[in-house]
């Protein structure tokens, strides 16, 4: 029998005490994993969304910054308008490479004519678009025809195998985008032509018509020319185009970023307090355990165990408890985050994307190390103290 096997057998004694230590390790590692996954998931989701937009600058009507952020991040439909003529004014600014207008629309809420409700719809101009169109050409070989839509990862056909009814109009869902963990996952993308077709027919087919103000757009996405500074271009837009706000992609979602920083700080405080309390509790439990087992440990010394063996054996027991508790906590936390990801997004009002398997394994490894470190730290002093004790004193009544 090896020292490790002895430690393994010893942890089966006193289920309550060992259960408390394992439970502390379980909660600590689960909480640590949960918080790192949520924060990192929100960060990577934001990054992916900005990449997906592909724009260096997004121009919206003044005062609509918060609405566009909510729309893109949380899928809350946004409706705002500015003159379509702004596209020409923006295109004339030196440094602007491509300008692509978009229309922001919404499906009806709870209407009989429609099979989905409260969905955000983005209509794009295929001639100038540089985000959806290139991807479509790659995936489908061509762009969307009139009556066809592309959906975020949560959009699914509700009329037959491929169709969705919007404003009494049947559209065909051609493809779904990869998940972003943001509101883009429950957004539908369609061409300007399809949007106008739905609008014109909705007067007869829908409970309420889809109204697109004439000569209006909601936003303009801009790609600057190589070598140009987006900040300079943005300044020129402010000077030359009245009533608009240009948002650089690096500034996009600022309010959410601030929210997340605040959330991160709070979480770190809670995690630190939890960690401290766990270490203290585990230390107390170990002290109690070591005191209760002092006769047993004295016997081991009498049988020939060195002080070092006793010390290592106690830390081996601590490590085993930390490992079993930690692995269980990490497994449960991973499953919970995967299963409840939508609820996390909605209740915390943050975007969220699951990590890649490799990234998840690394974070699980870090969580396990935290559990092992914490439990061993807590057990260090009691284990050292009891291993130095005179065997005869240890075995005394």
């Amino acid at each position, binding site marked *: 029998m090896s020292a490790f096997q002895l430690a393994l057998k010893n942890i089966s004694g006193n*289920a309550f005490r060992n*259960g408390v230590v394992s439970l502390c390790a379980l909660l600590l590692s689960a909480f640590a994993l949960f918080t790192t996954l949520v924060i990192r998931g929100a960060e990577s989701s934001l990054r992916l969304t900005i990449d997906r937009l592909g724009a260096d600058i997004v121009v919206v009507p003044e005062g609509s910054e918060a609405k566009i952020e909510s729309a893109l991040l949380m899928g809350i439909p946004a409706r705002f308008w500015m003159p379509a003529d702004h596209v020409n004014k923006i295109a004339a600014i030196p440094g602007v490479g491509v300008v692509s207008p978009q229309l922001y629309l919404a499906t009806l809420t709870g209407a009989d004519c429609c099979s989905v409700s409260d969905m955000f719809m983005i209509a794009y101009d295929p001639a100038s678009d540089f985000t959806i169109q290139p991807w479509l050409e790659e995936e489908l070989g061509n762009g969307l025809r009139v009556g066809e839509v592309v959906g975020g990862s949560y959009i699914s056909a509700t009329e037959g195998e491929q169709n969705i009814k919007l404003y009494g109009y049947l559209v065909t869902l051609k493809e779904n985008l990869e998940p972003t963990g943001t509101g883009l996952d429950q957004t539908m993308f369609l061409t300007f032509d399809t949007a106008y077709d739905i609008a014109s027919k909705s007067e007869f087919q829908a409970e309420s018509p889809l109204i697109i103000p004439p000569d209006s757009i909601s936003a303009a996405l801009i790609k600057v020319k190589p070598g140009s500074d987006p900040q300079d271009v943005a300044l020129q837009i402010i000077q030359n185009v009245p009533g608009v706000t240009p948002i650089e992609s690096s500034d996009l979602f600022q309010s959410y970023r601030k929210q997340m920083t605040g959330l991160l700080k709070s979480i770190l405080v809670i995690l630190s307090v939890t960690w401290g309390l766990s270490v203290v509790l585990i230390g107390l439990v170990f002290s109690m355990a070591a005191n209760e087992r002092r006769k047993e440990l004295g016997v081991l010394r009498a049988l020939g165990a060195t002080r070092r063996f006793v010390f290592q054996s106690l830390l081996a027991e601590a490590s085993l408890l930390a490992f079993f508790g930690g692995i269980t906590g990490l497994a449960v936390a991973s499953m919970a985050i995967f299963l409840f990801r939508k609820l996390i997004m909605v209740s915390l009002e943050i975007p969220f994307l699951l990590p890649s398997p490799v990234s998840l394994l690394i974070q699980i490894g870090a969580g396990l190390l935290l559990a092992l470190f914490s439990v061993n730290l807590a057990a260090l002093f009691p284990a050292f103290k009891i291993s130095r004790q005179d065997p005869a004193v240890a075995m005394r009544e």
Partner: protein
Amino acid sequence: MNKTMGILMIVLALVIAIVPIFTDCLANGRSLTTADGRSVPMKCHWTAIAEIGLAVPLLFVGVFNLTSKRKETFRALNLIGLALGALVILFPTVLIGVCANAAMPCNMIEKPALILSGILVMGASLVTLAGSRSFIEPVAA
């Protein structure tokens, strides 16, 4: 170990019985309107009802895990627990299902809660089954 798993199963049985009833679409004010104008619950509600039917025997499995003393009893109980856990997962996913829309409360809370609970029930049953292999019969007084 058996007692711990038994308590866990009792808690999970209560979760499985109670959580779906409060997190299905009917509890959140959403139902289907039929052609003749009647309001009927959607399938997530029937999943919730069916889960109660699984939670009750699971509660007994948990209680007997606390009180039993024989190795064979533990084996039988936890094989039943394993089957019940599998059904808890299968009802909202394959056998009955919940609403298709990802934003509905049944999809956000009811279904993941049931899947997680089912996995934990199966895990607890497996742990008890593995532990019962080295179970020691108590010595007669």
